[in-house]
């Protein structure tokens, strides 16, 4: 990391591992359950959140000395909402099919607790550049989990990745299906996303016992 100082690199890397927004802070779970049935929407969601959070953090950080503290939550909401509407419009104009697929979830970025959480906890008290890195780091951490969950759910639930039939054709019985393999329809449903996230949390904490909370 020659480009970034040690402190800056930490801002990006920490949320990827030991301070992950989903598995450690357990924020942004709602969208992680809803859109991860397939890999493609997971990635688009991750990129959209990265855009909103990275830019939003910068905007909030620039305004941090002028925002009246009485209405700061409303101001934060307006900044998120504005950015989300822009993302929505741009997707509608340039990736219409995708925007149809994501439909309500793009709007739900507004309620993604990671975003409000980072605005309130970081951007309001830090300079724009660290805030930007913090936003990118946290959305990367969010995106990594989304992609992992999406990968397993699409692979085991539909036997595809990005829509390609990687395990063979379930109707024509080719590939794995020829020897009796079946798709697990449960993987497509939201509860299974919770279980997959749970397994990730389990694996992560058993590799790093320092993360386990004391009761």
């Amino acid at each position, binding site marked *: 990391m020659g480009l970034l100082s040690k402190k800056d690199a930490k801002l990006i890397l920490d949320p990827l591992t030991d301070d992950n927004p989903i598995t450690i802070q357990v924020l942004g779970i709602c969208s992680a359950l809803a859109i991860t049935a397939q890999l493609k929407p997971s990635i688009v969601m991750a990129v959209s959140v990265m855009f909103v959070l990275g830019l939003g953090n910068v905007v909030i950080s620039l305004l941090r000395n*002028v*925002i*009246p*503290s*009485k*209405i700061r939550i409303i*101001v934060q909401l*307006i900044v998120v909402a*504005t950015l989300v*509407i*822009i993302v929505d*419009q*741009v997707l*509608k*104009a*340039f990736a*219409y*099919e995708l925007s*149809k697929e994501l*439909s*309500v979830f793009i709007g739900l970025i507004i309620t993604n607790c990671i975003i409000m959480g980072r605005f309130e906890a970081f951007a309001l008290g830090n300079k724009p550049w660290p805030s930007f890195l913090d936003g990118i780091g946290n959305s990367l951490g969010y995106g990594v989990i989304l992609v992992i969950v999406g990968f397993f759910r699409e692979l085991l639930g539909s036997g595809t990745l990005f829509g390609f039939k990687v395990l063979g*054709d*379930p*109707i024509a019985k080719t590939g794995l299906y020829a020897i009796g393999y079946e798709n697990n329809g449960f993987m*497509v*449903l939201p509860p299974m996303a919770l279980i997959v996230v749970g397994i990730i949390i389990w694996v992560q904490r058993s590799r790093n016992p320092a993360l386990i909370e004391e009761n």
Partner: protein
Amino acid sequence: MAIDRDKNSYTIIFSVIMVVVVGSLLAGFASGLKPMITVNMEAEKQQNILYAMNVNDNEGASDVAFIPTDEVAADFSKYVTKQFVIEGTKTTENNEAYLIDIKKEANKAKKAGYVRKLPIMIGEKDGKEIYIVPVRGKGLWDAIWGFVAMDKTMTIQGVYFDHKGETPGLGAEIKQRYFMDDFKGESFLNGNAFEGIDVAKGNNDPLNNDKTDYEVDALAGATITGDGVAAMLKKDIKMYVPYFKSLNK
């Protein structure tokens, strides 16, 4: 000089500036991107209409596959030969009939004396004339809509349904092929009378081999959405009956 950020006047001025800035930014984006969004929505309509008349990329795909967006305009003008707007007993040719907003028309028609504009597209595939009409109704949570392609005798050649917010895995399945394909071959007319098509639970014909029962098999767990589809077909297709009768004279 530090500004007192706790003063009410400061809060109000800040809010006003924020609203103006954000408002003009969003307005700029919306009007700047509008032409592209309109083009996309028109292409989607064309894809749906072509899908209903069985012009699609379904071959080899496991689910609904439309004609790709960049080819759809050419295919649309190739397969859809004529478009009409029906107003009462008057029928006028209109090459943009498919763009008529039937939601707006349905609202206007609530006023007494308004003659509703009914769009109908006439296409030709494999030497057969196909009549495509749009339908719109209510599902469980929100709007459902679609296109129905019929021949002269009001026998369904194909349908396409879509929805705004039905439950994934349940009501949202109306846009899956296995449900839409069930409609093919069913007829709306029983002799001379308009019968409609029911989405029926327990119709003893889950594979839909019986094409003369005016029923298709319902989706498990999606009773209201299914009823919505049936009601939408009954209500909207019925308006076209006089037109089809005049064709068969």
